[in-house]
């Protein structure tokens, strides 16, 4: 039996009619578009804010290379939101979080943003600078306050994106000056810099190049890929160049290989890392003793072992809530980032404007935030790092978080001449 042509045409017409009458769809908004509205209490609200809840997104890494860091970040931020809720929430609304894992895969991060972006008022953290980059345009269109957990300079220059603390280059400038002033490196000496290709390493390299030039040092560069594991060749190159100190802007695993191989080969020089070069998980490994002996790192955030009352309390609360989990730098980084978002929301609530743009504007109105966490940040400018002060920290087996402060936060004298390149 054949279907008459007319029947087929009728079927097609029916299909089209069905499509056009899709008004019953939940997506149908009647063409309102922007979605901003004032709720009963006179507060302007937008996506992510209802009459009794505020939704905050997190795009994190729970299955990829930064899984332990991502887990600490997520735990710490949920702890913070819980504490805020116990104290009554914000604007009479409870904070809710939605978490999505990207496993350090850009496509999954883009998918996660498409999924939770429309439901969130802000993103309390996004792990990984390639992932932030992939959704940067949309963050700017949506005016979504976003705290990236990455410190490369090209993330600067975007109004809704708030890089916390210093960028890697500022850390390196401070670090090189520290080497000269306190570790016996003299003008005319060579220093080495081991770094990852990509924005992390290249941002750090910008800083070390500038500082080496200013302080009359010779910089010996060694670039590696994130997949490289064995640093024997790099150690040999540094040894041949006779370097007096080595800067380290790679992952924890590469740091362990570098420091371990160098010390085993009798290289007695100080190693100074970026904040992403170290993880307390390295200490029980065979490289642990070498790291304890010769490695320090530069960071804007106070380590978990710090005496600051806010950090001490965080350590206790975190251990009470997540007794089985290791404490690492993700805990304080996540908690601080959650604090930034919550304070922006509180300010926005005072201004009766909880739309995304309102939250970003409230956030950008603060110029001295975070005294209690050991580093004051200025959020009013977004083409410069929020802070120029770094701690020097060294690994310690006994301390909470596996690190203790060596030098309280300082800013190198030469930083003021440094032009921060921003991503625009």
């Amino acid at each position, binding site marked *: 039996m054949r279907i008459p042509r007319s029947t087929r045409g009728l079927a097609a017409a029916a299909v089209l009619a069905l499509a056009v009458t899709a*008004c019953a769809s939940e997506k149908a908004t009647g063409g309102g578009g922007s979605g901003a509205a004032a709720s009963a209490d006179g507060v302007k609200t937008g996506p992510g804010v209802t009459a009794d809840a505020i939704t905050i997104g997190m795009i994190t890494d729970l299955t990829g290379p930064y899984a332990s860091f991502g887990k600490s970040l997520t735990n710490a931020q949920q702890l913070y939101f819980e504490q805020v809720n116990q104290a009554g929430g914000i604007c009479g609304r409870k904070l809710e979080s939605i978490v999505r894992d990207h496993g350090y895969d850009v496509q999954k991060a883009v998918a996660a943003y498409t999924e939770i972006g429309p439901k969130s008022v802000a993103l309390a953290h996004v792990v990984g600078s390639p992932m932030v980059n*992939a959704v940067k345009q949309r963050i700017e269109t949506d005016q979504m306050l976003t705290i990236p957990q990455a410190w490369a300079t090209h993330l600067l220059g975007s109004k809704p994106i708030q890089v916390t603390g210093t960028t890697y280059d500022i850390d390196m400038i401070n670090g090189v000056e520290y080497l000269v002033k306190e570790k016996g490196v003299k003008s005319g000496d060579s220093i080495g810099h081991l770094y990852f290709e990509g924005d992390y390493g290249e941002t750090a390299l910008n800083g070390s190049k500038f500082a080496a030039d200013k302080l009359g040092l010779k910089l010996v560069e060694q670039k590696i890929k994130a997949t490289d594991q064995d640093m024997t060749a790099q150690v040999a190159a540094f040894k041949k160049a006779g370097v007096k100190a080595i800067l380290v802007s790679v992952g924890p695993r590469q740091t362990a290989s570098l420091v371990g191989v160098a010390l085993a080969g009798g290289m007695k020089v100080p190693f100074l890392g970026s904040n992403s070069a170290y993880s307390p998980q390295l200490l029980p490994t065979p490289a642990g003793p070498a790291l304890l002996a010769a490695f320090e790192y530069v960071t804007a955030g106070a380590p978990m072992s710090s005496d600051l009352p806010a950090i001490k309390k965080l350590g206790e609360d975190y251990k009470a809530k997540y007794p089985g989990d290791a404490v690492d730098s993700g805990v304080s980084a996540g908690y601080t980032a959650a604090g930034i978002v919550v304070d922006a929301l509180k300010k926005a609530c005072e201004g009766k404007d909880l739309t995304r743009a309102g939250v970003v504007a409230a956030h950008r109105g603060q110029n001295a935030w975070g005294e209690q966490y050991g580093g004051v940040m200025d959020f009013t400018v977004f083409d410069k790092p929020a802070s120029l002060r770094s701690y020097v920290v060294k690994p310690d087996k006994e301390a909470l978080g596996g690190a203790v402060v060596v030098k309280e936060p300082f800013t190198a004298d030469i930083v003021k001449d440094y032009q921060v390149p921003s991503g625009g």
Partner: protein
Amino acid sequence: MSRIVTPLWWVLVAAGVVVAPFYLDGIWLQDGLFAMAAAIGAIGLNLLTGATGQLSMGHAFFLAVGAFGYVYFASAPSGDGELDGLGLPTPLAAVLAVLLAGVAGGLFSPIAGRLKGAYLGIATLALIFIGHFAMSNATPVTGGHNGRPVPPMELFGFAFTDTPEPLVIAGVPFGALERLWFLGVVLLVGAGLFARGVLRGRPGRAMNTIRDHEIAAGVMGVPVTRYRAGVFVLSSMYGGLAGVLIALVFRQTVPDYFGLILALSYLAMIIIGGLGSVAGAVIGAFFVSMLPSLFTRYSDALPLVAPTGQEGIGAAEAAQILYGLAVVVVVLFLPGGLFGLFTKARLRLARRSAPAAPVKHALTPTPETRN
């Protein structure tokens, strides 16, 4: 029986496709678009690997050529001289990007024509590493590590983008994803029909003969080397088209995406879907690219699985385990892939109602002839 069922079936599918953007959330549309792009790429790879028996591990490279080619041709050079571009009209840029991927495949074809099977696989592996190096270092063209924004496609004055004010059809705002959905459907249908034509015609028979018995093909007068090289070029053009669509969905090209994992997942798609046929490639592409995200989104409804970000086995871990399990089950129990399962079921139905029609010509390789 099938005369009524088949057209009805197609009408239903077409209706579903047209209605989808009116009801589905952005995330579904985006997953669907990624799957459509993957399906186009997988069809191309299936022509090469499934139909001709040539293994390629470098498919991701041609996707990258298509994506970055489109961005380069369509972008205007940036003011500060950091990024170059030609600023061509976007449809022309897309066509040129596909041709560029073909040229890249053509440059490789002296190798692709002479090597076969696993040897070609190893040779194409090199493309991934060359591609990664080029993408990271040719900053004026690719934007280096950070990639660069993708200019939205514009056809006859109609832009596939969110801004300015969204177009509203039947009360549903049509943003970039809804608009791209239809572009993706058109491209996928076109790509599928073309490949079907190739497979069912003379070239398809020649390709299958090369796969099943190279010497026999040569004896019958099939120019083996030329065919191998030609199929390689065709499959790289499919890769290029998939790359253009992926770039449009991403809205920012990201070099790290086009790596070895992507190339392997394309191989997984055609094996899971079914080697040698268009439908197999499409089914496999949807399976591989949508299953993990479905699991991630819904696995917290399963017992013993905690919502993402809380204690216990998280949804993300569960998604990976389930996905791995699904792949193993398909490969172990369905030698013809998911498409083979459909064909088997249909044959069984047909046999019940009518005597089996003689099998004309096997598009899919039998296990004995598979490389």
